[in-house]
């Protein structure tokens, strides 16, 4: 294991200290319990958005705290959900009297800890609604599994629901928009190399030099199949096909195309992926009306990429374009 760390057990806390030092204009970092809030305190009368989950997916979620997106992010240990305590503390810290929306990725641990936290926060007098994100089409049979996983589509939910909260929507309306974005988003990823959790010290799975895992999860959970490495265009087609047929996306649809890097894949390759994905969509008469390309939902140093399609309507476009000022997304100001 070769990593720029000091102590495997201090990875999250030292990283948070750096984040606080670099971005105090945008966020405030609380320690013990650890959570990140938008600078300037709670916004009275605004619905607050809180998300969180295991660390190692940066900039998710802390990089999306700020105007027009999240009010708080709760980082757990690497690849491990936070406990209820910091989620409750963050929820209470950002409540502006209009209630709090929890945005939870669909993993057993995240769901259980956020459920417990929501119950505890309600006892403290804060109204909490929760939306569980499950955009990953790689998980085929949800009946016999823990269900589809929440992956890169989470960023789109956080941006669009965050904009809805910023324009003054009430809690039920913000929750409804978040639910609707999740329902219209589909993702699928591929891994070229595994990632290594610092305290584990060894890769979470192994892939031969000429192998890729199609349908990989953001913690290195296995996907649909392991195949020999192919040219980028062929891999992109393999990722797109199940996404397109699942919703389905059809000719005449307008979409946001999001090509997300898993942490170890350079931008130059992400644009090669985007090129083919956009071309394949154009061939089907699907209009790419908005786009996002970059490392936004990562899996430590994993080489890989995920493709997310969000079917757009006018309201989604308006909320996507609305101003945002976070560490990782910033426009329109």
């Amino acid at each position: 294991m070769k990593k720029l760390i000091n102590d495997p057990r201090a990875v999250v806390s030292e990283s948070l200290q750096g984040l606080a030092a670099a971005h105090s204009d945008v966020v405030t970092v609380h320690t013990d319990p650890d959570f990140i809030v938008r600078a300037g305190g709670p916004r009275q009368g605004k619905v607050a958005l809180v998300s969180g989950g295991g660390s190692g997916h940066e900039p998710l979620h802390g990089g999306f705290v700020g105007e027009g997106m999240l009010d708080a992010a709760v980082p757990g240990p690497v690849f491990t959900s936070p406990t209820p305590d910091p989620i409750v503390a963050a929820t209470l810290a950002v409540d502006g009297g209009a209630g709090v929306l929890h945005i939870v990725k669909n993993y057993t641990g995240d769901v259980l800890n956020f459920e417990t936290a929501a119950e505890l926060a309600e006892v403290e007098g804060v109204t909490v609604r929760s939306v569980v994100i499950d955009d990953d089409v790689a998980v085929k049979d949800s009946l016999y599994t823990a269900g589809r996983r929440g992956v890169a589509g989470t960023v789109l939910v956080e941006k669009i629901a965050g904009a809805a909260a910023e324009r003054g929507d009430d809690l039920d309306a913000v929750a409804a928009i978040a639910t609707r974005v999740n329902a219209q988003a589909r993702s699928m990823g591929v891994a070229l190399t595994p990632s290594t959790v610092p305290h584990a010290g060894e890769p979470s799975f192994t892939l031969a030099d000429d192998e890729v895992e199609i349908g990989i999860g953001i913690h290195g959970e296995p996907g649909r199949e392991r195949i020999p490495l192919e040219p980028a265009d062929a891999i992109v087609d393999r990722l797109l096909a199940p996404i397109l047929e699942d919703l389905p996306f059809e000719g005449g649809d307008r979409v946001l195309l999001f090509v997300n890097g898993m942490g170890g894949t350079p931008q130059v390759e992400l644009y090669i992926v985007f090129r083919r994905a956009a071309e394949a969509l154009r061939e089907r008469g699907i209009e790419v009306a908005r786009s996002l390309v970059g490392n936004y939902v990562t899996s430590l140093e994993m080489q890989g990429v995920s493709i997310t399609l969000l079917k757009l309507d006018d309201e989604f476009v308006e909320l996507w374009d609305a101003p945002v000022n976070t560490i990782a997304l910033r426009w329109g100001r």
Partner: protein
Amino acid sequence: MGLDSGWALAWVRESARVIAEHRAELIALDREIGDGDHGENMDRGFTAVLAKLDGVEPGTPGDVLKLVATTLISTVGGASGPLFGTAYLKAAGAVTGAEELDGAALVALLTAARDGIVLRGKAETGDKTMIDAWSPAVDAAAAAQADGASEAAVLEAAAAAAESGAEATEPLVARKGRASYLGERAIGHRDPGAQSSALLLRAAAQTAAEAAS
């Protein structure tokens, strides 16, 4: 004579010791079919439990279990934190106020723990989860108690059944938790949560046997 808070404390200390001892093994099991953090998370939780025990006056066994529950919920995270936390919380609730636990109380404790995990995790027997260790343990403990076994023997029956149950998860396909994403590829691997559950119940049996001797 039943098992008192001295036993409960010994059980918790032994649990922390075996979890630390098997940390790497649990991580390895979890890396096969999960995300490789189970040993780390459980070790962090029980290390925190040990720290809490220092300076605490042992009341009843239920008090000890409640302390374990709240500490695990606030330190373990992942799915294991709420699941084991709920197990200890329900176990504590089943023996509230009792100074000493007889065989019937131990069966009630184990049953409440198992039911708590089922309630939180919504898993069933055969889903390749910790339930596959807990359910046979409860059944074996109840059978032993019905046969008039001693407290130590009730827990020995539970521990042995949990160990067999954990082993029996190996040929199963997982239907809950992260391993469920693997489908058939989970076959041949032991569920880490079932394994850690068996370790905890073995610690209970061992400390009960030591208390009786």
